[in-house]
């Protein structure tokens, strides 16, 4: 049936359509990401209540949108711009930061069809506590094309449809033509991966056999660099394949591994070039990286050659992230070099995956892929889904590793960390490499414990163990928290914890202590300053030391503050309320027997109330 509208109705409809955008333009809608300070009293209530209260303080009706991390809320309000709302919230004394949420289109998950299989990007949960929460981090930043991650590896397939838009021209640093296996001579500007397969003809070549330590058989191509590059930066929200953890991050492919691997000399030269340092014979790198991903390793302690280069690269402000190794043993080179952020591999459950190397040099752990209940015909339940070429030797068409494929290795844990660092730099480009590493470590989730496993370094026959901070770094990578910490200038301040006396009485020397306070990784607590902020009278403190005394002249509530400064000059502050009594409560011990009288019951109730209040004030960080 043909429909015909009268002219008047059509004009009215057109006018109504035109009115919608006009009205929207006149009523701004604000979206702001806000984080509360650790001492904020609002942390004791639910996120929706926090947002509502913040709005009431500044006279607007605010609503919670979501809560990317326990301390961070995304809120909305009408009638005010995002910038104005953020500015007003930032003036609140208990707000750590407030920034406009400019990424409205990212609220929905990216449309990459394999994203649902990328379990390691999802929020941590009871079934997969090792997941990184990267999807929540994307609510804080979509990443930035100005942040470059170098993947020093086997090269990449530049024609992969999920990578092509993200790849920068790289360089091939493989000097040995036998290892390189491409048609070029020596180092060259083509970082394409021709395949690292070992053929029968390769095995027949004595020189190559020697380089490869006399392998027993041929093997196919790994397309390792293409896989690693995809974990960092596969194009996101492009209706294809997978999503890279780094969002808009760009990839600089540096080819240093060929058949059987690559020489240290080529890897180091590639690392230096990636960081923008000069390498004789190679042109200057027009796109220096801020993060270098090393999903490679070999036996040996850290050599002077690596140590030298790492010092130069760090001085250039570039973070180096490296695989601990797959040897169920000591951390390998170059991850064992000082200044490198070494990554150990954990299972989805958060315990050390059997093959991962471990030790004191590890800085952080991240999912490395693991298979559960693998038997004949059964899938590998927690693998990585990676970009890859489908050729068994030379390249053919491109695709993805299967959701049932055994795609595992500390190689794949490293790009999760590198991509997280790239997101952090997108959120805060001013962060240096040491600050990146510190924040990644500081925000990591604590390791879970499986009662059936020993604590590392003791391992089961298949290499598994419960991670400890002495063997697997500070914890499990938490990308969302790391990005939030990148935005938070106070994230590395000392954590101040004050312990109060049980029954404080006036005119007595009351003991206060802060022994449970702590500094961020790499720093130590150096000075303490106690002050009284409020109270019925002015009390007196002992020395400005971790533990001190306070004498209150009269009973009542005293608000006390302790400020602790660390060796990096950062200061953490905590306020507590000390409820001082006129006299010590009567002891309930001794004498026994008779039923309590009403006066005693009232006294007990008062004490219980006071104790409850003291707990609330002494530990405001606990929601």
């Amino acid at each position, binding site marked *: 049936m043909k429909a015909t509208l009268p002219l008047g109705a059509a004009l009215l409809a057109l006018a109504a359509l035109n009115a919608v955008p006009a009205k929207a333009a006149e009523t701004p809608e604000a979206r702001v990401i806000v984080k509360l300070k650790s001492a904020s009293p609002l942390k004791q209530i639910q996120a929706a209540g926090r947002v509502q209260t913040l709005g009431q303080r500044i006279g607007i009706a605010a609503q919670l949108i979501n809560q990317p991390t326990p301390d961070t809320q995304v809120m909305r309000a009408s009638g005010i711009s995002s910038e104005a709302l953020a500015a007003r919230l930032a003036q609140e004394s208990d707000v750590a930061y407030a920034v406009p949420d400019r990424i409205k289109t990212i609220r929905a998950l990216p449309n990459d069809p394999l994203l649902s299989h990328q379990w390691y990007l999802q929020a941590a949960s009871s079934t997969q506590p090792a997941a990184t929460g990267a999807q929540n981090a994307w609510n804080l930043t979509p990443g930035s094309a100005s942040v470059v991650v170098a993947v020093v*590896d*086997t090269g990449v397939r530049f024609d992969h449809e999920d990578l092509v838009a993200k790849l920068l021209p790289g360089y091939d*640093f493989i*000097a*040995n033509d036998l290892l390189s296996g491409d048609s070029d001579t*020596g*180092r060259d500007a083509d970082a394409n991966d021709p395949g690292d397969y070992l053929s029968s003809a390769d095995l027949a070549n004595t020189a190559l056999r020697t*380089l490869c*330590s006399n392998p027993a058989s041929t093997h196919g191509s*790994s397309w*390792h660099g293409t896989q690693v590059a995809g974990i960092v930066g596969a194009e996101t929200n492009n209706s294809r394949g997978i999503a890279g953890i780094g969002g808009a991050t760009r990839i600089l492919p540096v080819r240093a*591994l060929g058949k*059987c*691997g*690559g*020489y*240290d*000399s*080529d*890897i*180091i*030269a590639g690392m*230096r070039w990636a960081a923008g*340092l*000069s*390498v*004789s*014979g190679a042109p200057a790198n027009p796109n220096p990286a801020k993060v270098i991903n090393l*999903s*490679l*390793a*070999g*036996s*040996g302690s850290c*050599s*002077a*050659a690596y140590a*030298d*280069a790492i010092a*130069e690269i760090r001085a250039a402000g570039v973070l180096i992230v490296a*695989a601990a*190794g*797959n040897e169920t043993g000591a951390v*390998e*080179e*170059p991850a064992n070099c000082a200044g490198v952020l070494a990554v150990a591999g954990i299972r989805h459950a958060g315990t050390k995956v059997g093959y991962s190397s471990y030790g004191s040099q590890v800085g952080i752990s991240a999912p490395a892929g693991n298979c559960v209940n693998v038997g004949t015909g059964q899938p590998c339940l927690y693998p990585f889904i990676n970009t890859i070429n489908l050729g068994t030797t030379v390249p053919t068409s491109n695709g993805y590793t299967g959701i049932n494929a055994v795609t595992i*290795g*500390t*190689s794949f844990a490293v790009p999760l960390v590198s991509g997280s660092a790239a997101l952090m730099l997108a959120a805060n480009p001013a962060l240096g490499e040491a600050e990146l590493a510190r924040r990644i470590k500081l925000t990591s989730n604590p390791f879970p414990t499986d009662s059936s496993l020993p604590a590392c370094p003791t391992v089961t026959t298949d290499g598994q163990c419960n991670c400890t901070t002495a063997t697997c770094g500070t914890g499990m990578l938490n990308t969302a928290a790391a990005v939030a910490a990148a935005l938070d200038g106070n994230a590395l301040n000392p954590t101040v914890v004050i312990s109060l006396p049980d029954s404080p009485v006036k005119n007595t020397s009351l003991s206060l202590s802060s022994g449970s306070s702590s500094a961020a990784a790499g720093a130590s607590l150096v000075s303490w300053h106690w002050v009284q902020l409020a109270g019925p009278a002015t009390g007196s403190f002992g020395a400005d030391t971790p533990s001190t005394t306070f004498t209150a002249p009269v009973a009542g509530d005293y608000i006390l503050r302790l400020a602790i400064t660390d060796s990096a000059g950062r200061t953490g502050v905590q306020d507590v309320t000390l409820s001082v009594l006129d006299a010590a409560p009567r002891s309930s011990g001794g004498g026994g027997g008779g039923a309590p009288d009403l006066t005693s019951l009232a006294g007990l109730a008062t004490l219980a109330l006071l104790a409850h209040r003291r707990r609330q004030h002494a530990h405001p960080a606990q929601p």
Partner: protein
Amino acid sequence: MRRLLWMALCAATAACAGPIPGTAGPRQVIIGFAETTDSAAPATLTSLAHTSQVAVSFVAAISPRSAAYRLDCPPADPACEKAIAALRAHPGVRYLEPDRIKDSR
């Protein structure tokens, strides 16, 4: 200047006076120099060969003060160990490390 420094260092060692033996079987090493050095220059290679008493070929540059070289001696040959020890002892050499193979993990 760089070549002069290296040649002066070389001249101060007895090794420079000896022959340059060549043996089969390469051994690849990374040499870190005390100062910026033209690592591929013939004079540098000659000086390294004189010091080590084995033929030395340039492989690839790493930095202005380091490069990979191939020592023309079998890894198991005691003469190769002597060559490495001589190079390490040279004041113009800050470090000498084996150029090992790393692999993807």
